[in-house]
């Protein structure tokens, strides 16, 4: 009897163990014809509520659930804005202050228990107004408020009103806003305080303005961050925090047609094979949260992930000396996509700091002491371009002559002279400087070592403070970091994002973490804010860039070039850097995937 009980316990344990081992977190694939898009996310998702979302990872998931009024064309380059939830492009008044937007009829939210009988209702213009009010509501502490600050008539007053409400429940969302009108359920009128040429790209094509059903916010309360109810092609099915996310088709999705036009070469590349077909193609979209690149890379090679970036230590395994895929990967029918990212990374200086703020020679010395080429060789396999300025080459306003100005040059001898000059200004030997480094992982530690070595070489003593992301954010927001390693990825194909981070009214906790102030720059920024894209505006951008570079509030290091690999079975994988809702375009050739796995 005792032996029998033991055997049962043993068998049960083995069964449970096998079951656990069998669950690789990538979801079951019972139906081989089911089209599942499998990807990796390298960070945890914080929130799936558009109002409180600011990071790339959350937007990557939310972008499939929520939709915006406008989106960037999937295939056309240069990037072109087209309607998504809007019926057409907005009608803009002559004074550029009033935008009238017609909204598509028959768009339904996904079914959810927040609605009566669980059946969704139709999207109306009121949902957009409600979404913007939520951003303005101080109780929601939306990091996206700076986008709308002092832009829409009456919205700032609504924000002030929310400050007077004691509790979040006390805020009256039916309070009218003069600048946000709804003549009918399918028309939205936005009235601006002054012209805002970037309104469509910066706001109306951004996740922050995605409509959220009021019923969902009322029903889920604070838990709305994990119960997204949108109008997009997919809806959330599973979310095991920190490990796994699964989206399934939204049966209420109206269907969208795959674009029939692109840029030259798209047809040859197969990007127009699905022209005119109804999207989305994939039945499920699955993300496994893998915070390390190495396991993600191995899963990609095993065919368990559809796409992958190339970890720096696997670069030689993937790419040959002439920048092509290695024969081993070609044999596996893996494809390489190389594309520029609208990004810039830097070592920033806090201009309010007593040592750095008033000591330009010291800031210049730090900038000249950093060997950017070696940095890129060591950490990015030499594939990223040096940031000679802060406007990336991808932007139309990029100054091709910026390199000649020499702001990014590595000159340790000059740096040593500048340190002497800096010590004279400081009135003695410079104190130990501190650099705030986001992360405690190997990359952060090695990057910290690299900076220490470079700066020590020219006689600058530094200490690196490694910290987690929330602590780092807090340090920057309270201006308590002396120097900080940071960067930005633009959300629109315009350099305005890069200018905003130096505008004095955006000082920390706003996006200007440098706490930089230059009257001339501010004046130019206010000038370009109301200008439409034109050669004059681009010229002003370049002028503004030079003003900043002359003051040296940061040592700009590099721009990013993405090297992305995908398997042959992933179709319509055209790189797109300004949109998150891309899963709907992807199609999976399930037969090819099965063939790969059967190898």
């Amino acid at each position, binding site marked *: 009897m005792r032996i029998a009980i033991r055997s049962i316990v043993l068998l049960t344990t083995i069964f449970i163990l096998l079951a656990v081992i069998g669950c690789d977190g990538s979801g079951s694939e019972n139906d081989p014809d089911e089209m599942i898009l499998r990807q990796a996310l390298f960070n945890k998702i914080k929130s799936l509520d558009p109002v409180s979302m600011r990071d790339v990872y959350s937007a990557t998931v939310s972008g499939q659930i929520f939709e915006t009024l406008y989106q960037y064309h999937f295939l056309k380059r240069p990037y072109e804005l087209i309607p998504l939830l809007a019926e057409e492009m907005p009608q803009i008044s002559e004074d550029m202050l009033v935008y009238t937007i017609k909204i598509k009829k028959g768009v339904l939210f996904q079914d959810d228990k927040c609605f009566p009988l669980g059946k969704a209702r139709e999207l109306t213009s009121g949902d957009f107004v409600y979404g913007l009010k939520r951003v303005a509501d101080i109780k929601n502490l939306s990091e996206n408020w700076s986008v709308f600050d002092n832009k829409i008539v009456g919205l700032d007053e609504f924000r002030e009103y929310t400050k007077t409400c004691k509790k979040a429940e006390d805020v009256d969302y039916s309070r009218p806003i003069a600048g946000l009108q709804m003549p009918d359920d399918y028309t939205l009128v936005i009235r601006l305080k002054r012209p805002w040429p970037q309104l469509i790209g910066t706001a109306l094509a951004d996740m922050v303005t995605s409509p959220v059903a009021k019923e969902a916010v009322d029903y889920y309360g604070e838990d709305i961050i994990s119960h997204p109810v949108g109008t997009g092609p997919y809806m959330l099915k599973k979310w095991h925090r920190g490990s796994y996310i699964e989206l399934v088709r939204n049966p209420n999705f109206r269907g969208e047609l795959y674009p029939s036009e692109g840029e030259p070469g798209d047809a040859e590349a197969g990007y127009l094979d699905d022209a005119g077909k109804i999207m989305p193609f994939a039945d499920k979209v699955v993300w496994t949260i893998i915070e390390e690149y190495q396991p993600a890379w191995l899963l990609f090679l095993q065919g368990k992930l559809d796409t992958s970036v190339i970890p720096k230590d696997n670069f030689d395994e993937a790419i040959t000396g002439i920048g092509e895929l290695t024969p081993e990967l070609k044999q596996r029918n893996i494809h390489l996509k190389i594309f520029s990212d609208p990004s810039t990374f830097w070592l920033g200086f806090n201009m309010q700091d007593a040592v750095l703020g008033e000591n330009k020679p010291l800031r210049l010395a730090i900038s000249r002491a950093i060997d950017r080429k070696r940095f890129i060789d*060591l950490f990015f396999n030499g594939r990223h371009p040096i940031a000679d300025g802060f406007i990336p080459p991808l932007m139309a306003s990029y100054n091709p002559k910026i390199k000649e100005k020499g702001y990014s040059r590595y000159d340790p001898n000059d740096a040593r002279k500048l340190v002497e000059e800096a010590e004279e200004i400081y009135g003695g030997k410079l104190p130990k400087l501190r650099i705030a480094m986001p992360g405690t992982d190997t990359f952060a*530690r090695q990057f910290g070592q690299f900076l220490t070595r470079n700066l020590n070489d020219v006689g600058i003593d530094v*200490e690196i403070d*490694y910290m987690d992301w929330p602590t780092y954010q807090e340090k920057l927001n309270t201006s308590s970091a002396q120097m900080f390693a940071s960067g930005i990825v633009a959300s629109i194909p315009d350099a305005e994002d890069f200018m905003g981070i130096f505008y004095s009214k955006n000082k920390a906790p706003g996006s200007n973490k440098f706490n930089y102030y230059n009257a001339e720059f501010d004046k130019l920024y206010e000038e370009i804010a109301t200008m439409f894209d034109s050669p004059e505006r681009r010229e002003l951008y370049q002028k503004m860039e030079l003003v900043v570079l002359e003051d040296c509030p940061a040592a700009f290091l590099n721009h990013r070039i993405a090297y992305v690999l995908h398997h042959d079975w992933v179709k319509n994988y055209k790189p797109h850097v300004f949109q998150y809702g891309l899963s709907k375009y992807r199609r999976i050739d399930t037969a090819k995937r099965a063939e790969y796995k059967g190898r």
Partner: protein
Amino acid sequence: MSEQQIISKTLPLPKGRSLWQDGLRRLGRRRFAMACFVVIVLYFLLAGFIYLAELFDWQVAPIRWSQEVGSQYESPSGENLFGTDIFGQSVLRKTLYGTKTSMTVAMFASFISIAIGVPLGAIAGYFRGFIDEVIVWLYSTLSSIPYILLILAFAVVLRDKTFFGYKLAGITTVYLAIGLTSWVGICRLIRGEVIKHKNREYILAAKSYGCSAKRIIFKHLLPNVFHLIIIDFSLRFVGFIHAEVILSFLGLGETTRPSWGAMINDARIELARGVWWQMATATFAIFFISLALNIFGDALRDSLDPKLRTQ
């Protein structure tokens, strides 16, 4: 003069040996244990030497670990015995410097855990009653939390905190986190021994002389259980080295100077490009000290514990 008196005058009585002398004699007979002891001493000497070199700014190789001695990821050669890392730094120098980091952490953590665990165990065992219950409750609660998770929690909480104007960072956080969480074992051991000893004749005699509880605990009881502290110290030391490696591996340990854990963490991803030497060197450094400490600790226990004497 009786016969017995004559013998006692002509033949000297055999000299008695103390517990320590007896234990050390037994230990000396174990050749392999002594070889391990030599290895441990070498590690300690190296750590001490690096400590002094840093203090007096002697420009010796291990403290110049950040110097570039070759190109990036140079494989082991006659010039660079254990190869180089991403910055062309000598892996050998980093490993030698890592000895100081690990030994310092293990040393301080041991002292902290003994400083907390021994008095608490002795007090609980001697006084029993309410005091005992409180201390037992405290260590039972602590021991119910998984050890590594507890250290991680302490390390995260203590990191970057300022106490009395001193900012906790890097190595200090590590040994504080380990020391503050690992006193339970020694506390439990000492409590049990004190309960056993407190009714023995020598303690009753001390009590009858009117000795204070403090005097009885620290002058009579603790010296009689001190060999257990030494044995526990030697066996736990290796655990503390491992804890430091784990914390550094997880990015919660030493970040500005080399440590074995950080080296393994770096090497983990470098293995993909065939760079094995950093991983191998750090692993061997940990392996030798762990093996030596384990064997020597076992031998020490066998030699000093009267119950385990077999010779």
